[in-house]
């Protein structure tokens, strides 16, 4: 390994309207080095990489990339084509795959001249197969990408970069959707390639990965680079402190005896479009005064379970009882009426109607309520007053309750949803990934509210991919794996981790 610099970012800045996403960020990367880029959600990591790759045009700053001979040369900005030509490959945070095409087409897309009358598919296939063999990253080439698993898609994304002879590989949260095993294999392959001179920047929220696989760590906070250190000198606590700028608050919880069952699922099956959103004969009971944690690797039926509890999908078999009474044909409205409060996983997509006002989003689940309407007409004053009160009580900050909800930041959108849910004092609360994308303060607030509801006597289903969150909040933990729910009977990290991976019962 040499330490010649292959990439230098100099003073990159980028604003989006009022938001300063990056502020004067400089970084450099050595040949064969693995640099981990860390920071909270919204810190500006993706933005920085998007400027490097040419998706975004920086407001200020330059990028230099080494050519084959190792001489740094300025990279024309704002042109992915130029970045690719300079040997920069990027695997985006969200898949950039055409799902109607197969992996071969996705990989060769853009690599072949568009004017050519013929494609050399055979040659391309041979080259990809060689790369697959060499890197250990394998994916079926002939199937439309829409039918591949997330892990396979992730590998296709990396193959895309390697096929373009990337010497600098940017990976934006490559393992967010992978199982720990898949993540390990991936890193092993990448590590192997770095010995041949590949340089890597990877973004991750999983500190253990960062510690295990990176050589160096850079941390962004509020768009600025706040620190850099060699991985060998870092530990989790130090990184966390650097990311947040303070020590993380701890949540206190008291012991409490569970009460009567508020949710009872008995042999519930859901036939989803794929393995991932199916449930098989699931049994589950949640009691009053109890937080039930549902642990599991993403894509094992969590969304099917959430859809059943929130009334979005009708089970093909089994019974659902809320507060002792059976819900025959579940629908979101029936669930709300039965006293179920639902915090959806994707708050932007399912939680709010972004174009409607904050106040309207606060009453969207209770349009039949005489406080909200009389004779079919909205009681606008009452709605506005109510919204002001609620916003104050739940600390929803933003441009005001009459502004469109989409203008709120992610954390405040979540607070809006919490306010809407908790206000009705639900008997049962479904909290699906409630702190995803929230900063530490906001996440602590969600935890506090959930514990408060538990105290009041609600039963809570907490679905989360963050095992730490579950272990911190839940009274009881179950694991969901392959559409089946298994009791763990313990709070033991190791054991639950193994069960999640399907290696222990």
């Amino acid at each position, binding site marked *: 390994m040499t330490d010649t610099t292959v990439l230098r970012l100099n003073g990159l800045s980028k604003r989006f309207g009022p938001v300063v996403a990056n502020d004067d960020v400089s970084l450099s990367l050595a040949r064969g080095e693995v640099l981990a880029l860390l920071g909270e959600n919204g810190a500006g990591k993706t933005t920085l990489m998007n400027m490097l790759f040419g998706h975004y045009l920086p407001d200020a700053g330059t990028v230099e990339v080494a050519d084959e001979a190792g001489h740094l040369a300025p990279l024309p900005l704002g042109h992915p084509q130029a970045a690719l030509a300079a040997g920069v490959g990027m695997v985006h945070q969200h898949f*950039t795959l055409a799902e109607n*095409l197969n992996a071969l087409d996705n990989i060769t*897309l*853009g690599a072949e001249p568009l004017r050519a009358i013929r*494609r050399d598919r055979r040659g391309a296939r041979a080259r990809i197969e060689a790369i697959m063999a060499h890197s250990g990253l394998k994916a079926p080439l002939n199937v439309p990408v829409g039918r591949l698993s997330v892990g396979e898609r992730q590998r296709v994304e990396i193959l895309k970069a390697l096929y373009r002879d990337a010497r600098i590989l940017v990976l934006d949260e490559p393992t967010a959707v992978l199982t720990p095993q898949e993540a390990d294999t991936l890193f092993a392959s990448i590590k192997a390639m770095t010995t041949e001179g590949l340089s890597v920047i990877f973004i991750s929220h999983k500190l253990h990965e960062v510690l295990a696989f990176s050589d160096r760590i850079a941390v962004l906070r509020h768009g600025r680079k706040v620190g850099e250190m060699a991985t060998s000198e870092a530990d989790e606590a130090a990184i966390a402190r650097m990311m947040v700028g303070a020590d993380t608050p701890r949540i206190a919880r008291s012991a409490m005896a569970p009460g009567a069952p508020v949710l009872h699922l008995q042999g519930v099956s859901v036939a989803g479009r794929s393995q991932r959103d199916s449930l098989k004969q699931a049994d589950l009971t949640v009691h009053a005064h109890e937080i039930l944690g549902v642990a599991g690797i993403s894509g094992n039926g969590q969304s099917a379970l959430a859809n059943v509890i929130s009334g979005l999908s009708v089970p093909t078999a089994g019974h659902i009882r809320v507060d002792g009474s059976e819900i025959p044909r579940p629908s979101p409205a029936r669930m709300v009426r039965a006293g179920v409060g639902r915090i959806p996983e994707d708050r932007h997509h399912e939680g709010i109607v972004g174009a409607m006002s904050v106040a309207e989003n606060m009453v969207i689940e209770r349009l039949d309520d005489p406080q909200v309407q009389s004779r079919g007409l909205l009681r606008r004053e009452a709605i506005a007053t109510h919204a002001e009160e609620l916003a104050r009580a739940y600390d929803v900050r933003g441009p005001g309750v009459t502004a469109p909800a989409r203008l709120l930041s992610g954390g405040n959108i979540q607070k809006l949803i919490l306010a809407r849910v908790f206000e009705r004092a639900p008997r049962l609360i479904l909290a699906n990934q409630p702190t995803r994308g929230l900063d530490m303060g906001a996440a602590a607030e969600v935890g506090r509210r959930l514990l408060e509801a538990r105290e009041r006597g609600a039963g809570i289903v907490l679905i989360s991919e963050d095992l730490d969150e579950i272990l911190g909040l839940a009274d009881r933990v179950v694991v969901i794996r392959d559409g089946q729910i298994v009791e763990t009977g313990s709070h033991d990290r190791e054991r639950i981790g193994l069960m999640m991976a399907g290696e222990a019962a």
Partner: protein
Amino acid sequence: MMDILNILLSESFWAASLRIATPLIFGVLGALICERAGVLNLGIEGIFVVGAMCGWMAVWLGAGLWGGVLMAALAGAFFGLLHAILTVPLGLSQHVSGLGITLFATSVSYFTYRTALPNVSSPPRIEPFQPLDLPVLSDLPFLGPVLFQQTALTWLALMMVGLVWYVLNRTALGVAIQAVGDNPDSVDAQGLSVYGLRIGAIVAGSALMALGGAFLTMSAFDAFFFGMVNGRGWVCIALVIFASWRPGKALFGALLFGAFDALQVRLQTEMGALVPGQVFLMAPYILSIMALVIAARSADYPRALLQPWFKGQR
């Protein structure tokens, strides 16, 4: 019943079907290319008119038949470019822009025609494309008479089916067009221009549509009339979905529609006294809807259809 069978077995019926289908083939292929790239082009009806007018006008002014075809394609490409600018970089509503283009292209054609020819009492005629009577091939049983009553433009349409299929499925350009209609980010991330691909596809698709119009004035007939496009463009919009955005199926759909129409004319002559003629006129449309209902389940839309995409925005 025997009548219908006799009709279906006759060469002239299939020749008529193919003839009626020809403008639709051009139109469906054009619309298909636009939609594969993610843009709905409701300008098609007007682009047909412009193609019909310009092609004819060019020939009438002495450009020669193929010169007319070229002019029609260029005119179609121009209005396609207009639609492309409005819907791709500006990301305006594809529905409204399309309807606006239809209104604009139609009125420009009519106004130009009338201003150029203020005092005609009967539309001037041109010497249109003649059926290609290819030796040997035309002697084939059944197929010969069906195929070889057709003009060069029908042949061109049939070749376009193959060409569009080949380009879409066998060239890098086609793969990129399919990708941009499914997920523009996939193209952007590979260093290709989303705007360039979409604009190019719309321009090319619109040029093809215009050939459908040109067929009407340069092959099916030999003069330009107001209102002669008569909804053929709209039919193509429906046929694209029926065809699940595939050139081969597009040919099939257009032929099916042509066959319904040809059958309609023939049944009307046979049974006109028994059933109101309109029942037959309606049949192709009703059958199209039925076909759509059946095909809808499996129809997988280009995922990015109707979705504007802006560079550097998420």
